[in-house]
């Protein structure tokens, strides 16, 4: 092994990383999981720990880019250079960059992760049988809304298991529209577009407007790559068009004609000769996990190894059951020591290439319009992505309704109500229900609080989600817990937050932006600085001074659809950000929409 000149290394062991943007080749959850496993390769054999953060400067900033991407070390289109990283230090030091002209997979070909449907976010199974025909791609047959879908088993006819494929008609990534799908046609600089475009951008990423006019609303998102998307060329992300004409001949599949390197390509219009629009066809691609594990080795201070089987060997080769080579272990332990892990007499079998059971996101109801012959989205539990840059560390196991018979509409009141990942959560006696206002498919649940947030008491008083880091704070009595996915900090006493002994239980919370949250107890409220986890000076203050006209003994206080909600008994008072009560109604009928 080799280290960089001067044995560059990090002087602290609790390292942070942040994923600035995501390749459209893979679902965001797949990329996050791959990076997490890649860091675990190194934390398993050292005292180092790695925490993903979602804003601000992390030790290791991760990004995807093509060609020249801002650091003066340009990438080179498909293949060749795959990625690079900088040795430990401040600023760009430690950062890792990945060439987005590559086709990123888990090393064995296209990964098409589905959303919604009834397959819990499983990947497409190619080929699959539908109505007796075999398909090896996403299809729109059987639907009238044009949403591409696939089966997640070998036969849809037999198993009826399916999900929706990545497409701009279903969601977008990044941008400023919280993942909303594209709206076609949309107007940009006076021109009407009915497909994703790279116009107006220099980085080649395809985008669309999420309202009818970008010129007017400035709302946009980046288009996910469909399963037929080409890689690189001059049409990154556009689908192949078959048949297409090339040098006067017609082609209905990818071809290597015209090339010396034998790579398969296709045209993205019906006539290459006239339009010259083309790209490479999907191949096995490069394992984002393996390349990331190598680059993170650089970020930690390892240079290239001369040992061919070592992870830090500079050339890429796909390995099915990856194991860190002793040469890599010696190198990293030379820099950081062994840590508490067992002495790996034989290399500890690192996670296999196959993705671990992917952390699936909160259950999301499927798109509403569901024409036959598709099954109705009964209990669809698929994934969705919070599209701001912040990605919630989702609970690692999919919440499965434990007691569908427990009906939220039968409850007189709730222990706590709060919005998590864009869904309203109603907690009662160790159970909870969720309601999404975006997808109109009603109340989901009852789920078990203990399954989703192990360690919480059955009865909680209040909860809120920190919008910056997506961590969820729970309060019960004078204690609180902080959950990041399934990992929890606590219980700790609320006095640690600076809330005095005179305060009783916390009844609710209102997110105020810029990392501030108002915590309500009795007839007072505190302003919590979530980052430092301390209440600000000058608190508590009297609720009545600011929030006039709402009950002072509210059982629940929560922010929902940008308005403050105070609940008492079966009623709620809704207050505008300008502190005007604009509605009083029934929690059951107005918020829960019970029949």
């Amino acid at each position, binding site marked *: 092994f080799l280290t960089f*000149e001067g044995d560059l290394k990090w002087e602290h062991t609790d390292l942070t990383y942040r994923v600035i943007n995501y390749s459209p080749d893979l679902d965001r959850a797949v990329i996050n999981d791959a990076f997490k496993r890649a860091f675990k390769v190194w934390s398993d054999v050292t005292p180092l720990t790695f925490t993903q953060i979602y804003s601000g400067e992390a030790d290791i900033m991760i990004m995807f880019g093509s060609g020249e991407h801002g650091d003066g070390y340009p990438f080179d*289109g498909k293949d060749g250079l795959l990625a690079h990283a900088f040795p430990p230090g401040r600023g760009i030091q430690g950062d890792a960059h990945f060439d987005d002209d590559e086709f990123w997979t888990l090393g064995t070909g296209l990964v098409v992760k589905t959303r919604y449907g009834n397959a819990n976010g499983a990947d497409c199974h190619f080929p699959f049988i539908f109505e007796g025909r075999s398909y090896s791609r996403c299809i729109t047959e059987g639907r009238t809304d044009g949403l591409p879908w696939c089966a997640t088993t070998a036969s849809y006819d037999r198993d009826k298991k399916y999900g929706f494929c990545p497409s701009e008609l279903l969601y977008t990534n990044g941008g400023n529209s919280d993942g909303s799908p594209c709206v076609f046609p949309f107007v940009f600089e006076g021109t009407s577009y009915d497909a994703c475009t790279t116009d107006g951008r220099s980085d080649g990423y395809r985008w669309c407007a999420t309202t009818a006019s970008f010129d007017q609303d400035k709302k946009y998102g980046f288009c996910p790559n469909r399963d037929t998307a080409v890689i690189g060329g001059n049409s990154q992300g556009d689908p192949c068009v078959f048949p297409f004409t090339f040098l006067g001949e017609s082609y209905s599949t990818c071809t*290597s*004609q015209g090339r010396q390197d034998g790579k398969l390509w296709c045209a993205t219009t019906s006539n290459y000769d006239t339009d*010259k629009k083309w790209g490479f066809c999907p191949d096995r691609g490069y394992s984002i996990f393996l390349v990331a594990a*190598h680059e993170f080795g650089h970020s930690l201070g390892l240079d290239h190894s*001369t040992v*061919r089987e070592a992870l830090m060997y*500079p050339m890429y080769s796909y390995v099915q059951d990856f194991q860190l080579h002793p040469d890599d272990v010696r190198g990293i332990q030379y820099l950081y020591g062994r840590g508490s892990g067992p002495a790996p007499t034989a290399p500890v079998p690192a996670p296999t290439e196959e993705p671990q059971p992917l952390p699936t996101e909160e259950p999301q109801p499927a798109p509403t319009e569901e024409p036959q012959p598709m099954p109705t989205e009964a209990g669809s539990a698929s994934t969705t992505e919070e599209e701001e840059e912040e990605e919630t560390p989702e609970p690692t196991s999919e919440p499965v309704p434990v007691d569908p018979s427990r009906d939220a509409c039968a409850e007189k009141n709730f222990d706590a109500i709060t919005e998590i990942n864009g869904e309203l959560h109603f907690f009662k006696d160790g159970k909870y229900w969720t309601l999404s206002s975006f997808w109109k498919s009603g109340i989901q649940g009852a789920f078990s609080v203990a399954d989703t947030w192990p360690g919480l008491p059955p009865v909680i008083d209040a909860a809120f989600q920190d919008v910056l880091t997506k961590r969820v704070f729970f309060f019960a009595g004078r204690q609180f817990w902080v959950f990041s996915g399934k990992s929890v900090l606590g219980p700790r006493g609320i006095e640690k937050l600076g809330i005095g002994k005179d305060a009783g239980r916390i009844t609710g919370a209102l997110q105020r932006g810029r990392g501030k949250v108002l915590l309500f107890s009795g007839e007072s409220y505190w302003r919590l600085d979530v980052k430092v986890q301390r209440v600000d000076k000058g608190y508590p203050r009297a609720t009545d001074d600011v929030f006039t006209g709402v009950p002072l003994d509210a059982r629940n206080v929560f922010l929902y659809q940008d308005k403050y909600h105070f609940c008492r008994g079966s009623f709620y008072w809704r207050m505008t950000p300008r502190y005007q009560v604009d509605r009083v109604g029934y929690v059951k009928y107005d918020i829960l929409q019970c029949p």
Partner: protein
Amino acid sequence: APLPGKPQALVTFPGELGSALTDRELAERYLLRFGYTTEAEARTGARHVSLGKALRRMQRQLGLEETGQLDAGTLEAMRAPRCGVPDVGT
């Protein structure tokens, strides 16, 4: 696959970075990019001598057979996908 017997016309595809390089150009670019040669060495008159020395250094680093020649194995390694961090130098 190319149609048998039909001379395959090679096309330069728009947007593809860099047109086809000769083996020597490929080698010189690779050795410079990954730190086996320096700009100065690449420009001096004794390019043949420095190329052989740099090739031998690259072959040793990557565990290839040390021939100092632009043989098939070395060219294949130079075309293989890899990390962009230089093997030698900063």
